């Protein structure tokens, strides 16, 4: 018996399922929706869903790093607003060209990410408290800069950041693919990535093995700030408007994507492809519910039920595999 293991009993399969079992849920979902509404899997709609999730996916990658170290970054929604407002100031009021304006805006978001990181890592404050506070501060700064007003940012060059395509593939999907590759390498192939998992898994063991906990945590929040900044640029290009009241509650979808992707709130467990799958599931839920004519009052409930079942299912499938 022992010599002849069935394929699903092999270690390789178990490890694969342990990491990406949520993919099974995604496949079931896509098949179920497509049977009821074949248009759901038309290429144009698949591109549509992938384009829609790009903003959430980028935020979720940053969120995933923070959650993996045992923290969370709730300031990301405000970061979107800050970047949006700064882009308006730089491009419309100061008539800067696109590239420096985007770099400066990203620098601001990265700086606030860094501040989050220092507060969490250096002073050992609870990430939840720190980022909820900086969320308020960052949004307030965005409102002060913009004086609460929106401004149109619909120049063709700027709009192209969201609506442009390369061989038929919308730019946001390309950004998402590139960043997914970078995040995969960063999380799974580099020393920094291993440190992130070490700090989240057992911080004392990490310290004992010589991991610099301060820099590891700080870098996670800094990267989260940068990614939220990039998401903010895409977001602003999408609506063609620079204003401070955007990005409210965007952190919830990012957290949901992480959780669906197998990121553990206990820290130390997550995968980059898992986050991508989680983001795609969220996108399919939103798009699929609209395609299936699910009434808007039922949509939140459906979303909640699916998240609970998906995570439960993932746990049941993988109880032995982790």
């Amino acid at each position: 018996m022992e010599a002849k293991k069935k394929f699903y009993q092999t270690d390789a399969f178990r490890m694969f399922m342990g990491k990406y079992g949520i993919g099974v849920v995604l496949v079931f979902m896509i098949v179920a929706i497509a049977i009821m509404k074949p248009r759901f899997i038309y290429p144009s709609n698949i591109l549509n869903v992938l384009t829609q999730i790009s903003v959430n996916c980028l935020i979720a990658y940053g969120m995933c790093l923070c959650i993996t170290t045992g923290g969370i970054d709730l300031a990301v929604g405000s970061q979107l607003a800050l970047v949006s407002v700064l882009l308006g100031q730089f491009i419309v009021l100061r008539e800067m060209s696109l590239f420096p304006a985007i770099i400066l805006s990203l620098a601001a978001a990265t700086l606030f990410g860094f501040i989050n990181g220092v507060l969490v890592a250096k002073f050992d404050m609870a990430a939840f408290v720190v980022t909820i506070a900086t969320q308020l501060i960052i949004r307030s700064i965005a409102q002060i800069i913009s004086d609460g007003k929106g401004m149109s940012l619909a120049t063709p060059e700027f709009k192209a950041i969201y609506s442009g395509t390369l061989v038929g593939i919308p730019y946001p999907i390309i950004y998402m693919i590139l960043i997914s590759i970078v995040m995969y390498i960063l999380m799974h192939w580099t020393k920094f990535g291993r440190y992130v998992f070490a700090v989240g898994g057992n911080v004392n063991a990490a310290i004992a093995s010589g991991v610099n906990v301060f820099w590891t945590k700080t870098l996670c929040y800094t990267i989260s700030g940068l990614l939220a900044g990039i998401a903010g640029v895409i977001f602003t290009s999408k609506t063609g408007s620079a204003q401070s009241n955007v990005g409210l509650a965007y952190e919830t979808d990012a957290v949901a994507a992480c959780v669906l992707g197998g990121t553990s709130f206990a820290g130390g467990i997550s995968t980059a492809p898992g986050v991508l799958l989680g983001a795609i599931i969220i996108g399919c839920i939103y798009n699929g519910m609209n395609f299936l004519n699910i009434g808007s009052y039922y949509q939140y409930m459906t979303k909640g039920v699916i998240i609970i079942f998906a995570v439960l299912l993932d746990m049941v499938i993988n109880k032995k595999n982790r």
Partner: protein
Amino acid sequence: MKKRMLATIMTAAMVLSLVGCGAAKEAAAPAADAPAPAATEEAAPAPAEEAAEAAVEAVGGDVNGDGKIIVGYISKNTVDVFHATLNGAAEERLNSLVADGTITEWTGILDGNTDAAKQCDLAQDCINYPCDYVIILPAESTASDPAVTSMADAGIGVIVVNSATDSTDSAAMAFAGSDDVYAGELMGNYVMENVPDGGVFVHCQGVIGNSAQIQRGEGMNNTIGANSSWTNAADVPCDWDASKAVNTVDDYLAQYGDDLKAVICDNDDMSSAAQTECNAKGRTDIVCIGVDGNQGPLQMVKEGTLGATVLQDGAGQVNAGIDAIVAAIKGETVEKSIMVPFVLVTSDNVDQFLN
């Protein structure tokens, strides 16, 4: 083995939860499919029912030529009282259009979540659905604009309802809304008529930057604001929030006492709360007025605890928008801009608006 069974059951439950929620409305669809060709009566040789799916030419109101007339509905949100009422009116009307075969189906109320970016996503969903006509209630004038233009570019007939976006004039098939400046003027005139001697008033604003807030304020300034016997104590940002309006009333009562004669609010959730506060303090003489015509304030007008409120006819707006779609389907000319008037509701006419 037990685990595996459990896993299978859970997957089934999850898929069913999706199917279950979708099924209720799906059931109505086949019934609607049948009468669809009837809507294409004008088109010379109506394509056979089987071929309808593949027909490329647009017939009747079938803009994208897939043999179906599908209407999308992108709401601003589903939680504000005003929008819930408006969405309800739209739901009733669109269901009846499906029932009588004018349209094949509609998307149900898509929740814009008061988020322009979300509305842009929903616009893409509608393009892929694929919708022939889409009604949209924009969350923002600038930021929701890509939703309108992207659908117009995709050939969809876009009907903008309630408030316009930047390129509504050029991109949308029609706009149905109301003139908020006029609402502000109605409020100003009502206060001046009811308190002829003048005095001090305070203005509770909506969320700053909102077009309704700006224009209602403008109408107010055109009338009572320009009258020398009245002094505006302050324009207070209350974010459409009734509790902030009550705080404002308390603050300015403390400051001006008997000189405070009126409270003008950008919506009537605030004005009804303000009036309740004044009445509780024994100042029933203070005139509070706002805009919307929500059921709570209307009930107060009926009871006589609130003098008047300005009704924004949301149901009228959305029905005017749907009328435009029906006209387009029948091949009639569609009016580009449809203005639905505000109504001053007092104890004389409140009964016709109370549910």
